[in-house]
């Protein structure tokens, strides 16, 4: 791994972000809107539900964590799409950079975009709704790590599709997370799902992450087994995502799609 090259590619996205104030505003705008929306919804739920009694922050914390996942995945996709939209794809892929260095650069830079969007939303929730995800305590770091890895995995799968099928796969980039959200049990306990769907949901890290978040906030209990399980599943999917990306890249070289992407 040549870190100077990883830094070079990361720099490309850093320059892009810093060059445009509307771009930064756009990154901040949507997560903040989410906080307002879910803040009022969760306030209403606490008034009307005994389940959420005294736990005004549960839904809002779930919204913040889900948004973190969404932003990390979309950031990864966006950075890859930027290369296609700017017709820079060929230049990038003929430069002496390894695929693992591209993945590393996008993974490291996606965190910057994700934090630009999420941090203001997290901070807004404290004075506006009296909700702080920091109440989760130290396990928050593990939950965020697991969410980030899974978000990047989804990004890797979508970018693999972009390499394989070309820019027409772009719409999938936007839809990918909405497809998994119902199974992630973000706002409700897993018991709400039919039994057969519960089995499928458990093979995703999301259920374990959001169940654990509720466990900590509602019952004040930390299950390290659940946290470890979430991270393990996320790492497994991440490795799978990397493998799929390599396979797509090799396939694209055979089909000759790399040279036409973005043209």
């Amino acid at each position, binding site marked *: 791994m*040549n870190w*100077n*090259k990883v*830094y*070079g*590619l990361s*720099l*490309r996205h850093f*320059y*892009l972000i810093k*060059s*445009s104030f509307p771009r930064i505003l756009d990154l901040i705008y949507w997560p903040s809107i989410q906080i307002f929306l879910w803040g009022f919804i969760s306030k209403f739920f606490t008034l009307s539900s005994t389940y959420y009694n005294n736990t005004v922050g549960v839904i809002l914390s779930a919204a913040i964590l889900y948004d973190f996942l969404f932003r990390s995945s979309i950031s990864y996709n966006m950075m890859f799409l*930027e*290369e296609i939209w*700017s*017709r*820079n*794809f*060929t*230049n*990038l*892929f*003929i*430069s*002496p*950079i*390894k695929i693992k260095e591209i993945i590393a650069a996008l993974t490291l830079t996606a965190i910057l975009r994700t934090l630009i969007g999420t941090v203001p939303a997290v901070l807004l929730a404290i004075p506006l709704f009296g909700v702080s995800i920091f109440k989760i305590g130290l396990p928050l770091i593990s939950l965020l790590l697991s969410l980030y890895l899974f978000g990047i995995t989804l990004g890797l799968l979508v970018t693999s599709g972009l390499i394989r099928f070309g820019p027409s796969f772009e719409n999938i980039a936007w839809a990918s997370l909405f497809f998994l959200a119902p199974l992630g049990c973000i706002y409700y306990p897993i018991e709400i799902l039919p039994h057969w769907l519960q089995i499928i949901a458990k093979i995703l890290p999301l259920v374990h992450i959001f169940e654990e978040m509720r466990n900590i906030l509602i019952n004040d209990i930390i299950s390290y087994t659940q946290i470890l399980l979430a991270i393990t599943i996320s790492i497994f999917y991440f490795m799978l995502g990397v493998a799929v990306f390599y396979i797509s890249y*090799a396939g694209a*070289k*055979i*089909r*000759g799609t*790399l*040279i036409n992407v973005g*043209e």
Partner: protein
Amino acid sequence: MKLEVKNLEKKFKDFTAVNNINFLINEGQTLGLLGPNGCGKTTTIGMLLGLIKPSNGQIFIDEKNFENLNREKVLSKINFASPYVELPKKLTVRENLEIYGRLYGVKDLKNRIFDITDDLNLGSFINKRTGELSSGQKNRVSLAKSLINKPKILFLDEPTASLDPDIGDFVRKYIEEYKSKNKITILLASHNMKEVERLCDQVIMMKEGKIVDRGTCQSLIEKHGRNNLEDTFLKIARNKYELE
């Protein structure tokens, strides 16, 4: 560096884009790759750049098979410029050159950027965003990017397309001088026959994926009984049955 292609072929399902082509470019030589649209030029360049996997055949760089060489090591000595491939528009010229300099592992990058921007007269707009430049300026920036790593082999795809005669002449002159100073091997795909006549030592004519003729510009003109390369190109391109 010497570039040699042996029995190179690319099939996409039933369609043969490049059909068993052979050529050699010696160090310091420029080979013109000519042919009508869809004749297989882009696919050939794609294979030489490692973007497309050949169905058959081999590419040799200094008599070593590309497949057996370290991909990153080879690519660090190669570069490519085309008006159809752009640099990130929101980034300044300097930022783009810095990023590609890093990706190519260029040493003493600051000085290299200074030299190349000075040579190609990019100084007056080095801090401008690439998307805000005229096509002539963009073209020179693209050429600067392609030379940032001092390549030993350079692929140029229509380097002066859509340029006015003055800028076009500047670019051609620059390539000529750079080549003579640095002894780089160039593969030039172009539809501008005057440019090919000026820059190329040898040319190959492609049609329907095959090489249909080759030689120096003068030898081809004489062989086909025409007055210039453009007429020769038209004769070859329009003759259905003429194959090498």
